[in-house]
């Protein structure tokens, strides 16, 4: 295989993989703290993309500056979804650590959000306009690198780094980690479990908002846009280890590289087969994922 081709494919694979990792980051964060899977995560991404779309369209800002609107809006959205929808389930099922009902409720939320978007915005495929990043490419001879994806990959690293610092070095971050490790012990130490749940959910949703801002410059916005990313996120999160920030990024890059390099040797649709085979393999061999912490149950 031509080394130039390989370099091109690796660059695209890593960039796109990091962006997949960013999408999965919100899912893994919420799981890490609440220990429940948010099935509506793809819809949160969709909401994030619409928020990004409208923030850019209405304010005329570029997608990245528009993050000052998108991130708080999405944080509040996640915060209140947890407070109003998820918390009552935890209260109702006090004796259960991971209430299965949450899966049902978030699945319901997924349908409600997707159909609400269909109702409000119609099925149209929307492209960002104005879009200062559209068609921006860095050309280095035969190798072409997409600028919006490069920005997206940098945004991913910045987000992951920021979250890492927040969790390791702030008081609130420590409280989040404590709740994640043992919510009863954390409560006994005076940490407000519900508040931490709300905040963790809010942060996870805000990250979906960042993903929205990252994706809109090169991806269309439509009501079911979350579904293809959703499935990918589940695979990434399991691959990297549920609850692990860096695991999500590594998982994303692995999938990005498979998707990008694989088609040189086979029809591109077969790369999905490899991704799922790997997914099963990890589940069999190392169910906690590559970077998963030993579970505390």
């Amino acid at each position: 295989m031509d080394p130039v081709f390989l370099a091109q494919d690796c660059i695209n694979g890593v960039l796109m993989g990091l962006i997949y990792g960013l999408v999965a980051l919100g899912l893994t964060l919420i799981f890490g703290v609440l220990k429940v899977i948010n099935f509506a995560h793809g819809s949160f991404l969709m909401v994030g993309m619409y928020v990004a779309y409208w923030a850019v369209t209405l304010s005329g800002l570029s997608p990245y500056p528009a993050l000052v609107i998108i991130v708080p809006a999405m944080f509040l959205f996640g915060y209140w979804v947890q407070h109003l929808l998820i918390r009552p389930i935890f209260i109702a099922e006090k004796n259960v650590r991971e209430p299965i009902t949450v899966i049902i409720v978030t699945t319901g939320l997924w349908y409600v959000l997707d159909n609400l978007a269909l109702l409000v915005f119609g099925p149209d495929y929307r492209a960002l306009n104005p879009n200062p990043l559209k068609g921006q490419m860095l050309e280095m001879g035969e190798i072409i690198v997409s600028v919006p994806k490069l920005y997206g990959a940098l945004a991913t690293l910045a987000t992951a780094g920021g979250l890492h610092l927040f969790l390791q070095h702030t008081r609130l971050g420590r409280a989040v980690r404590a709740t994640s490790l043992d919510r009863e012990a954390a409560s006994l130490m005076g940490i407000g479990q519900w508040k931490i749940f709300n905040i963790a959910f809010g942060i996870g949703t805000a990250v979906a908002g960042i993903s929205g801002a990252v994706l809109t410059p090169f991806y269309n916005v439509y009501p079911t846009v979350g579904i293809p990313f959703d499935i990918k996120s589940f695979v990434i999160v399991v691959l990297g280890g549920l609850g692990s920030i860096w695991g999500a990024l590594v998982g994303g890059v692995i999938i990005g590289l498979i998707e990008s390099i694989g088609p040189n040797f086979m029809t591109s649709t077969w790369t999905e087969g490899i991704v799922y085979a790997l997914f099963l393999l990890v589940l069999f061999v190392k169910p906690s994922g590559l970077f998963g912490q030993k579970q505390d149950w």
Partner: protein
Amino acid sequence: MKRSHLLSAVLTLCLAVPALAFAAPSVKVGNILPLSGPSASVGLQAKQAREMAIEEINGAGGIKSLGGAKIELLYADSKSDPNVGVTEAERFINTEKVHLLAGAWNSGVTYPTTAVAERYGIPYIVPVSVRDTITERGFKNVFRIAAKDSWWTRDQFTFLKDMQQEFGGTLSTVAFVYENGDWGTGFAAQWKELVKSSGMQVVLDEPYSSSATDLTPLVNKIRRAKPDVLLLVSNAADAILLTNTLADYKVSPKVILGSGGGHADPTFISACGANARYVFDIVEWETDVNKPGAREANEKYRAKYGTNLTGEAVDAYVAMYVMADALERAGSLDPAAIRKALAETDYKSGPGMIVTYDAIKFDESGQNRNAALSIVQINDLGKGLERITVWPKAARRAGYTPVFPMPAK
């Protein structure tokens, strides 16, 4: 106890009153369409076109031979999933007791749902769904308005040959890139046959998933294959993503030729902008068609729904008129009578007849024998990007010279 009796009495009354109100005769038509999922946008157009036609038909007095019976449209969302489609077809026939079925846009859904209709003997009108075999199973109850896909691919190759003859230049290599559903793989199978006698060499034969999150790997593959002609079958979201990514990576074949579907979606041009320029697409109908009533119908549609009619919307629109015409002649709601009337259809003029050809007439298999195709090029003639009919030459918009080959990027 007493109170609950009262309650149930009130409830019964509530349920009974609307039932009485709807007792007037109506023809129930079950429509199976992709109203959510990757094809929701075309599903919605199909729904809107049907509703516009039925509003007109009901507004003009309904089906007179049935005492002015109104047509009632019921919808089921197939989500582009054959299993969902089959369940909904069963439900329409057994629970809703529909008199006719119509659908289902996705060939993959139409294929099994028409089999359900055939089993129950319920007439099934297929406005759009191009897979050949839908009308090649000896079914008696399936009537298709649109051209079969073998006619589409045949015309795509004839177009390529004609363009080389008219404008010179040779097209020596071709890449087949298609969505991996029934529709795309069906087209590709025929391309592989047709290419043998075309003198072109196939340099890439690549299916892809319409719900792919990244098409860059596919585009890089096309870039490395360097085809003269890029033949595509795409749904809406992927047609947009593919066109933009091709432009980003400066992939410049001499001809990019779509197969309707996503390339004909009204949002395609707005979402791709200048990247869509010079792309060719095969269609059944275009807004610049010279046919009485066509412009009025398009203007009405645009005023109502905000987009132009597409070939597929026109098929859905005309299908409703063909159905009303058959019901009028059948004068009965018996499925066999409706079937017989549909088979005898010869719809030449009258409202709704805005297709490019002269008459809708079904052959033995239920295929509309006259369905015809044309090819458009997307270009900007100073009034923004638009679709301009270029082929067959007789139908070409006056004064337009197609841009062939596409300028290199």
